[in-house]
């Protein structure tokens, strides 16, 4: 097992069924050491199910999950994977220090409890009962628990839900600083902006599949320009694609969707040279691109 070539996470053909429901329909993904990756998608896209499999909390129905070249549970037992959950996961009748001591005692090696309390900014409230801590303090405590074992991979499931803007910013700067030291971070979010700001790479997931995988600017490029929609029999996708500034052409029966930077040229062509009717030109925002990618299954739009 050479660390140099072992990905932090490797998913190969992973699917997960819950009875008749297919939560994950086939995901292949590799995350390299030190990478900061956003798992972006609407609720119910399969983000949490996938994260659960990486953490060894559930097993894939088919396919393989490896964390640092090991089975997830093996990696967890060595303190190599940690996660910060959105809510819960704390005992109200323990003090902050007891919670960290309790967690630390379960691992073979951890950083010193005091140092972790200090760096998470909760040394001052170490003797306070968890029940008496604010939401923000509890989140810092969860963060401290996750970093105790100095994990090589950190998973965050919607980590900033309920935080204010300031809290969000300081949270992410702490995470970024951390990732710079070689820790891989995979975080799930449904905020495109958050993914764009803080991740090196965005993996867009919808209906249990990866629909796009690229840098923030690559994902955003999907959102520039406008969409020209028209009703047109026997549309010639070849000619449409050849027009200047056209990114993608999609023909669905008699409906044509042309995603283009120069929508005027497309409209002009459609009106002058074809029988196109019902022409509609819509600006495409970031959220729109996101919705179209995750809502409809335009698979492999970017890959």
């Amino acid at each position, binding site marked *: 097992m050479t660390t140099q070539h072992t990905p932090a996470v490797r998913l190969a053909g992973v699917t997960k069924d819950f009875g008749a429901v297919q939560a994950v329909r086939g995901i292949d993904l590799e995350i390299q050491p030190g990478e900061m990756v956003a798992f972006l998608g609407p609720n119910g896209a399969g983000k949490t199910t996938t994260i659960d499999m990486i953490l060894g909390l559930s097993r894939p129905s088919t396919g393989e999950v490896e964390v640092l070249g090991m089975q997830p549970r093996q990696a*967890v037992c060595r303190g190599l994977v940690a996660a910060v*959950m959105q809510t*819960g996961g704390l005992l109200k*009748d323990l003090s902050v220090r007891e919670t960290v*001591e309790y967690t630390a*005692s379960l691992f*073979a090696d951890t950083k010193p409890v005091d140092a972790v309390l200090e760096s998470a900014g909760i040394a001052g409230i170490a003797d306070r009962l968890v029940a008496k801590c604010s939401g923000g303090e509890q989140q810092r405590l969860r963060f401290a628990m996750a970093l105790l074992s100095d994990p090589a991979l950190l998973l965050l499931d919607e980590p900033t839900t309920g935080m204010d803007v300031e809290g969000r910013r300081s949270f992410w700067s702490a995470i970024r600083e951390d990732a710079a*030291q070689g820790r891989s971070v995979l975080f799930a979010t449904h905020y495109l902006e958050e993914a764009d700001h803080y991740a090196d790479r965005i993996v867009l997931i919808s209906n249990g599949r990866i629909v796009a995988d690229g840098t923030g600017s690559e994902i955003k490029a999907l959102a520039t320009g406008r969409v020209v929609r028209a009703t047109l029999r026997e549309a010639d996708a070849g000619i449409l694609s050849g027009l200047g500034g056209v990114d993608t052409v999609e023909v669905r029966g008699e409906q044509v969707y042309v995603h283009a930077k120069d929508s005027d040229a497309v409209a002009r062509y459609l009106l002058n040279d074809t029988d196109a009717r019902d022409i509609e030109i819509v600006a495409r925002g970031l959220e729109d691109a996101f919705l179209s990618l995750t809502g409809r299954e335009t698979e492999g739009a970017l890959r």
Partner: protein
Amino acid sequence: MSAIQGIDPTTRRVPPFGGLNRTLLTIELRRMLRNRRTIVFALVFPAVMFLVFGSGTQGAEKVGEGNVSAYVMVSMALYSGALIAAATGAGVAVERALGWSRQLRLTPLQPTVYILVKAFVALVLGAVAIAGVNVVGILKGDPQMPTDTWVWCALLTLACVMTFAALGVFAGYVVPGENVMQFLGPGLALLAFLGGLFIPLSQYSEVVRQIAYWTPMYGVAEVARAPLTHELPWYAVVNAVGWLALFVAGAAWRMSKDTARV
């Protein structure tokens, strides 16, 4: 890929004993003792009950190798231990509801070790509860029985108490939420009445007594007092073993079903 330099997976170790350690046990015991409601209901209340029912003139009447006061003391110790063991068992479901069990699954702690720790905590606290009532008994000076009988009764009581730790786990899963004890407490009091812990079964009407023979505290009470009374009907043993098996099976069944995400 120089970024990995900071963390080398090959140097990482797995903790021995599935994560079992002294800090874990200490904190688990400390939390239970910190719970004021548990302490009052499981430790103080039964001791007071013993003082009310177990002393006085009728306490001196002879029962088996000892007296009525000793008989009441063993009953109350069982009630006390059962309450605290049930509270500990119910904690398993509470921790699940809080997402703590899920948190623990992200550590090297093995699920079987977790259950063993909970059983150990139930055993230790059960012992504390039983010892509490017995110490009150010794201080009061009313209970009379040979020392070896005394020890046997206490040990059997402790074994019987584990039935209620399993009941606590089972009940916690069946009725989720943080306040399982709010109905388990009164429930156990009712079972204690039916099982003859507070009032001897001979004082009940025939109908109630016939029902009582089937209830979970009847069997264990007879078993716990057997060294004193030298009376142990076969159906009491069947009752004790049957309910233990049922509660353990129920708890195991609910826990094995519990694969869903919290």
